[in-house]
């Protein structure tokens, strides 16, 4: 497949432009990690530091609390993501493809949480998990968010696009609904699972308010909670915060690099030609 040279170079320019506009703020964050306490906020705007200092990065990496928070949060985020994919994809399939009594009621029941402002139930959620004795456990960080109306809604919309013909063929072969879900739908779900899975992972990773409310045990401190401690009573140490944020974003970048390959053409359409 050879393209004309003009077209090829136009594409390269566009790729470069998009990359620069997206990366500029991120590069600034990483470079601000090399700056001193006050230097980050100095006006007028300055991209590079006066002097490159490794101090901030070194300090954070040497801090045992940082690496522990990274590991604890990573494990929590992975468990959270897997659980939410299981729970939400099952419900999504039922709403996309099955007919059952009371479907409308349960649809409204499951989709409504999407519109509830977090603030409306933040304090009462805290009361509920306290009553359930869940404070200071991994469960309080993971379980309450697993059922996600938005994620279920996304997967349901995706499953609506699945060809009915494939399903009918499987039914003629004698498969029941559960088998169709696990053997036909799940194997074709890699792309949507990666897209919403990364979203769940990030939602867990970047959570700040909920861990602060529910976790006081230093062994369970989450990464954003840890970064929050840089906002001490002496004001925010911006250089340290930027360095910490840069390091904290690395695992997500690695995950993206690994999983982006699954966002490719589905095979299911070609399968029924």
């Amino acid at each position: 497949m050879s393209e004309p040279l003009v077209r090829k170079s136009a594409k390269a320019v566009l790729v470069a432009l998009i990359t620069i506009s997206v990366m500029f703020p991120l590069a600034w964050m990483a470079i601000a990690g090399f700056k001193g306490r006050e230097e980050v906020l100095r006006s007028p705007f300055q991209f590079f530091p006066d002097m490159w200092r490794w101090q901030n990065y070194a300090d954070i990496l040497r801090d045992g609390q940082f690496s522990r928070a990274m590991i604890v949060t990573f494990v929590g985020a992975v468990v959270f993501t897997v659980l939410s994919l299981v729970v939400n994809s099952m419900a999504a399939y039922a709403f996309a493809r099955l007919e059952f009594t009371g479907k409308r009621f349960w649809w409204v029941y499951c989709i409504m949480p999407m519109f509830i402002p977090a603030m409306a139930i933040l304090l009462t959620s805290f009361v509920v998990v306290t009553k359930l004795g869940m404070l200071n456990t991994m469960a309080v960080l993971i379980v309450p968010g697993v059922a996600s109306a938005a994620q279920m809604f996304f997967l349901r919309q995706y499953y609506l696009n699945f060809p009915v013909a494939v399903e009918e063929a499987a039914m003629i072969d004698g498969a029941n609904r559960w088998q169709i879900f696990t053997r036909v739908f799940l194997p074709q779900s890699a792309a949507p699972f990666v897209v919403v899975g990364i979203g769940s992972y990030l939602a867990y990773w970047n959570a700040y308010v909920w861990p602060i409310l529910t976790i006081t045990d230093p062994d369970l401190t989450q990464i954003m909670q840890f970064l929050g401690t840089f906002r001490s009573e002496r004001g925010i140490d911006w250089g340290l915060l930027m360095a910490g944020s840069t390091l904290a974003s690395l695992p997500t970048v690695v995950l993206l690099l690994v999983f982006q390959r699954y966002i490719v053409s589905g095979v299911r359409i070609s399968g029924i030609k």
Partner: protein
Amino acid sequence: MALLESARTGRLPAETVAHGKPRRRGKGRRDNLTAYLMIAPMAVLLGIFVMWPLAYSLYLSTFKISFYKDPQFVGLQFYQYVLESTDFWHSIWIGLYYALIVVPAGILIALFLASFIKTLSKRMAAFMKVTIYLPAVVSTVIASVLFTFMYQDEGVVNWILGLINKAPVAWLNDPDWALPAIAVPGIWLGFGITTLILLAALLDIPESYYESAMLDGAGFLQRLWYVTVPLLRNVLLYLFVTGFTLAIQMLDLPLIMTNGGPTGATSTPNFFIFNSFRDMTPYATSFSLTASLLLFAVLGLISVVIFRLIRSDKAVDG
């Protein structure tokens, strides 16, 4: 014996269906048991961690809560206070205005980016898929600080304006510009995930549809409008509904970049709620709780409208 009997009678209807008449297919078929088992985990979790707190919030909103006195039942009094507050309605309007900038712009940019990535070679596409998602990796706090810098009087944005001989703008201090200005980081933070979602959906459209459209002489925009958009209906509905509910609830950007100002120009609903909470006026808790419950009602209404506008409960080929 009775047990056996009931087991047999229990199996009987199924057998009659299997042997007596052809299996019903299509609309009339019901799979109650399978369906209930599949939605049960979600329904139970939502019941405990969303519906219970919500019911509790609704209950609390009918009380006057203060640190000094016992809660006192006041019925719907706070609902009346909030509904009569012009600041509340102003914030709803600001939230809508913000969402009307961020959501369509974000989806449009993402649609073009996704179509573009689709045409790239495998390696370039892999690179772009990671790159465009990177802004979402950054927390809103960092993004807010960063864009505040770029909007400064001597910041990057005004420097670019200077290049094309335009007068500098006080972006965050001008009531007309402040909201569009904070909408830009809003778009920047969100378009990565939107692009990936659209890309995943685009990749599922059979190439043959485009080929036949091209044979009919359809240009790029025509193919986008007549082939891509109708086939993306299900995904677009999702993007509009979640985009609107998320955008109207934006809190971090106005909180950090403008503190709701100038003159309330960026006071989004959640900012208004947060502000009345930290105001520490008497009964601030009850007032902000009630305001957030009313915001829920507003969001619900808007989404019903969007659901009606984009009907999508059918399979594309079904």
